[in-house]
Structure formats: C-alpha cells, structure tokens
C-alpha cells in the first residue's frame, strides 16, 4: 500500500508517522507549488473554496508519482469541508486514476480506532492506539517547533532558517516517545529563552480557518512575511489542539467557548467559534492586533467576520480580515500587511 494524504504544513510529519506506524508505505506528494494549485483549479468546480482546490491538486500529484490509497478527513457536514471527499473521489475517478479512497470522519474516534483503521491496515486496535499516541505526541512536537520558530523568526530571521533546517531533520528522525519528550522540553526551553529577548516589536494574533493557519502555501507564507517585520505571530490552532479537542481532552476550549458565545448566537459550523473565542482570548492577553484569514466565500468565517467587527469595536483593537483565492497576489497582500503593521506601530507610540 502506498498511502497519501494532503499536506497540512509541518503537521504532515505527524500524519506520516501515524500511517508508517500502521505499516503503510507513505508516498508523500512533491511540495506544494504553483502547479499543484493550477491542477486543482483546473478540475474543481469554479465556486468551491480554495482548500478543496489545493488538496485536489495535491492528490493528483500524489497519484502521478504512484500513490494508490488516498486518505481525506471529513467534518460534521455543516460546512463544505465535510463533502470534499465525495466530490474529490468522483473527480479523480473521472480523470482515470486507479486508487482506493478512504474518507476519515473526525467525529467518531471509537469507530476510527476499533473498526475503520484495523480494517484498512489489517492490524489490531491496540496497534492503532499506539500509532495514535505517537501521532498525538508528534503533533505536540510539531506545535512546539512551530511556536519556537515563530519567536526566533521575529528576533533574527537569518538565524531562524538554520534553526528550521536543523530541527526539522531532528523531528523527522525521532520515533520513540522518550526521544520526543526530550525534544519537546528542549524546544520549550529555547522558546522561553528567546522570549526574554527584547527584539520583538509587535505581537499579532492569527485566527481563521484551520487549513489556512496550518499550511504556509495556502496563506502565501503570511507568517514568514509578518516575522520579517519583526512581528511575533501568535496562533493557537494546530493539529495537536484539534486532536485533543476531538478526543475531548482540551480544557482550554471551555474558555474559548465562553468568550465566543457572547458574540455568536449559534455555531455556524467550521471553526467560526474557535476564531471568535481565540480572537477575544488574544486580545485579553494583550496583543497589538488580530489578523483573520479565510478562503474566499467561506461560509462560517464570513459570519465570524461580522462578529469580529463588533469585537474590534468593543475592545478597541484593530482586526485585519484577509480572504484568499487562487488569484490573490502576494504583492497586494504585502501592501495590506505593511499598512496594517504601520497602523499598529503608530497606535503603540
């Protein structure tokens, strides 16, 4: 079995290890490029949101290099994400590829561990649990790595490039829980040490749709660009927190839920609730501004947009909303960020 799944930023490493631990050979598609996007756009319906297009392009490129089993997550089917897999499977079959397609539901962990995975990989549920534990640990490591990277990027961009290369290799290499724990500690300490540095000029909270927060290609390397201006980017969303949330082990969510309920009469699906709760949480912690990113025509985030306007008024904190589609140009994006950061700097004075 040559398994493939769409990239989700650094967290792909955790997913890769999960599948490897179950005995699959993982056939990762080439890194996301303009070609991926073009392929995706070519075969997708025109009105669908950008994550659909990018992940479809990802699948096509994976199939081109010989993958035969595809994995895709599905959601609660309140928003479009839940239906990606049905249409993607249909489109790929029409293109003439031979493959097996498994859509993995996020909301049935029991079925996932005891029925679905053992059936697909022909292993015992115990092994699935072990692999799941490894994935959770690994995703925690990825989160810590990303958090540290954000700090060092804001302080010294050149140094961060070396740090990124060095630690990515280390993270990919470790396979045992003990080694992961050691590395986790190391990364946390590094972050603490760097945070004492005075080089950080501004702190900006990043909220929005999860794929756009995790995948740097989708958000046009927004985080990198921000940190080139000496901005520390804060973001809570990661695969680790998502997994914890799904397994109902995330106490911090209650706080976010409480904050969000004031501004949202009912959860409109997707991550609108997290977006709003996290935005309020960041503001209470004292960030200078909030950047909200989402794909063009995203339904839940557009509802959240109205709430964020109100939050911005209530707390007197600037919020920049950016929507992305395949035509978004990087230059335009940079201009908007620069203007926003200028505004934040002036307010700080």
């Amino acid at each position, binding site marked *: 079995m040559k398994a493939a799944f769409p990239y989700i930023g650094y967290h792909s490493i955790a997913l890769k290890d999960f599948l490897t631990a179950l005995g699959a050979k993982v056939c990762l598609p080439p890194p996301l490029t303009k070609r991926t996007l073009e392929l995706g756009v070519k075969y997708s*319906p025109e*009105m*669908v*949101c950008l994550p659909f297009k990018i992940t479809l392009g990802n699948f096509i490129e994976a199939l081109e290099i010989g993958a035969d089993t595809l994995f895709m997550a599905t959601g*609660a*089917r*309140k*928003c*479009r994400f*839940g*239906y990606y897999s*049905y*249409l993607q499977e*249909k489109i790929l079959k*029409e293109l003439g590829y031979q493959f097996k397609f498994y859509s993995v539901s996020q909301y049935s962990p029991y079925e996932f561990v005891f029925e679905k995975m053992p059936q697909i990989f022909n292993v015992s549920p115990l092994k699935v649990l072990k692999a799941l534990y490894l994935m959770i640990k690994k995703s925690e490591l990825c989160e810590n790595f990303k958090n540290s990277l954000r700090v060092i990027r804001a302080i010294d961009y050149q140094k961060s490039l070396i740090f990124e290369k060095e630690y990515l290799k280390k993270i990919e290499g470790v396979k045992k829980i003990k080694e992961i724990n050691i590395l986790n500690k190391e990364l946390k300490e590094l972050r603490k040490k760097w945070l004492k540095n005075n080089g950080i000029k501004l702190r900006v909270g990043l909220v929005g749709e999860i794929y756009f927060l995790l995948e740097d290609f989708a958000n046009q390397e927004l985080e990198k660009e921000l940190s080139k201006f000496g901005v520390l980017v804060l973001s809570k969303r990661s695969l680790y927190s998502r997994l914890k949330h799904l397994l109902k082990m995330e106490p911090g969510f209650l706080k976010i839920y409480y904050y969000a309920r004031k*501004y*949202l*009469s*009912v*959860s*409109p*699906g*997707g991550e*609108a609730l997290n977006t709003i709760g996290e935005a309020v949480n960041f503001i209470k912690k004292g960030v200078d501004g909030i950047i909200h990113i989402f794909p*063009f*025509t*995203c*339904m*839940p985030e*557009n*509802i959240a*947009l*109205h*709430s964020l*306007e*109100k939050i911005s008024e209530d707390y007197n904190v600037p919020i920049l909303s950016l*929507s992305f589609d395949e035509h978004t140009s990087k230059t335009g994006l940079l201009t908007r960020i620069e203007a926003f950061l200028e505004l934040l700097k002036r307010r700080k004075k």
Partner: protein
Amino acid sequence: MKKRIGIIRALLYYRYGNFFINFFKYLGINYLISPETNKELIDLGVKNSSSEVCLPLKIACGHLLYLKDKVDYLFIPKIIYPYEKLYTCPKMMGLPTIAWYFCGKKKIISPTIKRNFFLPLFFLGLKFKKNPFKIISAYLKAKEKKENKKLSFDNEKLKVAILSHFYNIYNKEIEDILIGTFKKEGFSVYLKDDLDEKILRKKDGFAKNIRWAFERELYNAFKYYSDKVDGICFFFSFACGPDSLIGEMMAKEAKEKKIPFLTIIFDEHSGKEGMITRIEAFCEMIKKKKSL
C-alpha cells in the same frame, strides 16, 4: 401601545413564513412583514453586509435594516434542524448573529429550533400572552395540514425542471425571467416544490450523505426528474457554498445520464438579458436534440 414584531420576507420566510404569521395572528400579536424584495432593499443589504456572502443573505440584511426602526422586536428564528438531524446552512444559522450587530441584541427574538417547533414557540408566546392554552391552540391552528402532492406530466409539451432554493425562485422578477422564458419557448415547467415530501426526503444513494436539509431536497428532486424530463436548469446564487458542491455533483451525474443540464449563477450584478439569452439557447438545444 401594543408591541409589534417584524418578520423579514427573505430566506426561510418562503418556507415557514405562513406558519409563523398564522401563529402570531391567532395569538393576537401585532406584526409587520417587510415588503417584497425590491431594488432599494437589495441596495441597502449589499451596502451594509460582508461582500463575500450570497445574495439571498444580503437581501435578508436589507430587510432587517428596513424593519429595524419600524418595529419593537424582530423575529428571526434560529432554525438549526428543520427536520430530522439535517442542518439548514451556516449562513442561515448565522443570520441572528448578524442581526445582533445591525439592530442590537435586545431587539432580536430568535427561538432555537431543533426539529421541535412547538416548545420554542410556546416560550416565545409566553413573553406576550399569559394564557398557555391560547398559545397551544394558536400553534395547532397555525400548523398547516400536510397535503399529498401528485404530479402529472404533460407528455405533449417538452418538459424542463427548474431546481433552485425556494428563496431564490419565489421572487416576481426571477419568476418572470426563469419560468416566463421557458414557458414562452413552449416548455412545461416543473419545480422542486411540486414534488411530494416523501420523494424529497428520500435517503438513498448519495442523498444519504447530504446533511443539508434543503440540499438533500434538491438532490432528490434532481434524481426524480432526471429520467422524466427533457432538460434540467439549476439556478443558484454566487457564493452559495452548499449549491456549489451539490450542483457540481448533479452536473456530473447529468453528464453520465446524458441529460441537458444548465447551470445559471446569479448575483446582484447579473443582467436579465444575459440570463434570457442563455435560457433561449438551452431551449433551442433541447429542441434540436429532440427532433433528431
């Protein structure tokens, strides 16, 4: 002075409006319904809402702003599950939230409806009237009787099915353009809502996986009509999330079954003439295909 409740003539009004109006009428509550959608209301909505939402929601925002100062309360139900465990759509669920920011939290009455219509409306009634029996009787009177719809096909004429959401199509202007043009070309037109509930709520095939109530209805209507009519026209608004996915699914299936399938996307900028030209060309194509 008696307090007055405002009801917007947009989105779910076209489905549950009569029921809610009758409920208020029998209960003796003063109500005001916003007028039929016109250009002014559309402009008002487009100006004040996010630029990325669909036109029906923008229109709803226009209605909200129109009613804002004319009534004491605005009635915007939060319908999460209209029936079974099927969602409406993120935007319809988000409308009360948007209304908060347009009119203030205190002005909005939005009972949460999850399949059960009675209890939320009962508590709403208690706010205005003290007699619980009166509320119950008003509810029972307002409840519409279910009719079994039977559809008969006219085999002499060419047949076309127009698939669209109720809030897109029950609008005079759109009705004139869409249904009028097809009728002018000599077609008999069938709508989604002509079908019986039993057909619309079927749970087989791909329909089982659709958890948007109104999308499932559209898909079932498509399945039912697909081997009975000569052409299908799917009409949806720009930036409508659910339709963009399910529409593509239908288009792909129509291609497999070789039925002519026309997709028309509209927004506040679409011109009437362009739509009519496309429909006429589509009709011409069906006629040619039939005469071969």
